């Protein structure tokens, strides 16, 4: 496969926007992406597009791709909706990278979008559960938080982890989100607040859960050889991997880690030719606090059962050895499902180009994104580096 790069990246504000339509949010991300370029972007150069979205609310469950592509002025190009629950964005990016890497196209848009706050509370609860195993998991009365809570209980049981460490993930990511003007939540929280919040799915409380958000993100993927037509500092895709697992947690051997993510990370590192210790900054899928701790282990930042210890020393906090989720993560930046995997790439794109503002990780050379669908039924990992 030939070398591929990201040459432009942008996102809408994440949050709750009753006044904005899905099309407006998508356009906001597209425009933000364009503004990351030195010059103007002629939409006609884009040869294909992949749009990740679950379709929460059912507003445009079929063919949101054409709807959104034409709204932002793309040509009559092939546009495909990619669905893999919360990893829809990651898989849209994967599709774009493969499309360019194969040599079929030189310039491809990868985008993601979700409009989650237009639904009633009851409808929202329905849509939040559609990506679990419907026949068995869902009919046990499990919510998505509940599925991760079952993982959390066993993780805490097996590794003797006090609840405090889950809450520390929330405190950290809120402190990062406070530095991100596009984050859904831009205020810090205390450990006491995080630990004392109302139960959602024990042992997970309200502050262990990412919010449902409106938002969109977009990146422009090109061949490395044409990347400098768009920007003098493209971000190179060094490696990627994707994996799948049984959808239902009762079918998995281990529930204290996500096999799909482990597979994705292993492949990505092998392709990039670097190791987890080389990563300077990472955006991981912290849909629930326990998920970030498991991500540390699945990616290889920590050994099995030891991910939580990274929090004690602040190693993954901005200013630490290897900051994780400087954007605020899903927890504070927000989690518009289909947009999340793309938005992670947007953050790493900015970090590697030194454009991450107050949350800049100094001298970051290698960045990683980790995007998980559902409770681990699918995952993507990307490793990016500055093309020197």
């Amino acid at each position, binding site marked *: 496969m030939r070398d591929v790069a990201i040459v432009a990246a942008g996102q809408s504000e994440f949050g709750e926007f009753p006044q904005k339509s899905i099309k407006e949010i998508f356009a906001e991300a597209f425009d933000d992406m364009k503004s990351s370029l030195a010059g103007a972007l002629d939409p006609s150069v884009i040869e294909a597009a992949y749009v990740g979205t679950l379709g929460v609310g059912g507003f445009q469950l079929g063919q949101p791709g054409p709807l959104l592509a034409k709204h932002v002025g793309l040509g009559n190009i092939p546009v495909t909706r990619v669905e893999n629950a919360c990893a829809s964005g990651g898989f849209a990016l994967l599709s774009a990278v493969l499309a360019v890497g194969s040599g079929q196209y030189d310039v491809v848009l990868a985008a993601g979008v979700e409009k989650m706050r237009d639904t009633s509370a*009851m*409808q929202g*609860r*329905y849509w939040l*559960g*559609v990506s679990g195993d*419907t*026949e*068995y*998991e*869902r*009919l*046990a*009365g*499990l*919510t998505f*938080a*509940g599925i991760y*809570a*079952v*993982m*959390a*209980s*066993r993780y*805490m*049981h*097996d590794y*003797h*982890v006090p609840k405090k460490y889950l809450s520390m993930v929330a405190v950290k990511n809120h402190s990062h989100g406070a530095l991100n003007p596009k984050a859904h939540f831009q205020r810090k929280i205390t450990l006491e607040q995080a630990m004392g919040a*109302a*139960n*959602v*799915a*024990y*042992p*997970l409380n309200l502050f262990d859960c990412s919010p449902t958000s409106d938002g969109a993100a977009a990146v422009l993927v090109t061949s490395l050889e044409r990347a400098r037509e768009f920007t003098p500092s493209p971000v190179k895709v060094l490696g990627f991997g994707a994996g799948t697992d*049984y959808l*239902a*947690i*009762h*079918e998995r051997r281990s*529930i204290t880690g996500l096999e799909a993510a482990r597979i994705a990370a292993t492949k990505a590192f092998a392709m990039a030719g670097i190791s987890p210790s080389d990563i300077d900054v990472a955006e991981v899928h912290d849909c629930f606090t326990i998920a970030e701790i498991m991500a540390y282990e699945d990616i290889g930042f920590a050994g099995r059962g030891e991910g939580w210890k990274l929090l004690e020393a602040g190693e993954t906090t901005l200013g630490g050895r290897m900051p994780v989720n400087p954007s605020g993560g899903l927890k504070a930046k927000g989690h518009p499902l289909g947009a999340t995997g793309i938005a992670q790439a947007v953050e790493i794109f900015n970090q590697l180009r030194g454009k991450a503002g107050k949350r800049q990780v100094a001298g970051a050379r290698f960045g990683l994104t980790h995007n998980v669908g559902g409770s681990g039924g699918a995952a993507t990992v990307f490793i990016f580096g500055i093309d020197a």
Partner: protein
Amino acid sequence: MGAYISVPVWERTIAQRYGLKGQRCLGCGAVLFPPKVVCPECGGHSFEAASLSGRGRIYSFTVIAGGGAPPEFEWQANAVGSYVVGLVELEEGPRIIAQIVGVDPRAAMAAPLFEDSAFEDSGGSSGDKGKRSLIGLPVKAVIRKVYEQEGVIRYGYKFKVVSEV
């Protein structure tokens, strides 16, 4: 509005929900539930039917807060507030996810999740389940109402904590 499990979809799994009918791989002997086409242990394709005893232990659990229950479980949340869902490891091997009945959700949340000398169960005595994590407790399958949809009551297995044998 809830997850849509139509009556035909439901009825195709009745043997599992009422009778815990699983399968045994003729290649490696692994017992599987629910039935599959390919054995995850050995890749085999040949199976014989195997009924599960319904006895097992709680492998992990959560307590779903009533306010966040899926819409199809709102009737239950309205009646009892929170409810317990467990991942049960059956004697025969498979894990199975289902509600745990007859457990006070507050007690389940009050107990520590891992062994701690301050809470260690002394064994022998009648034991205070409120102080012991649900993880590891023995359970047996019972039939309960799971939910209703399209005017049809959907019954199925749940698990009830039983005393140590």
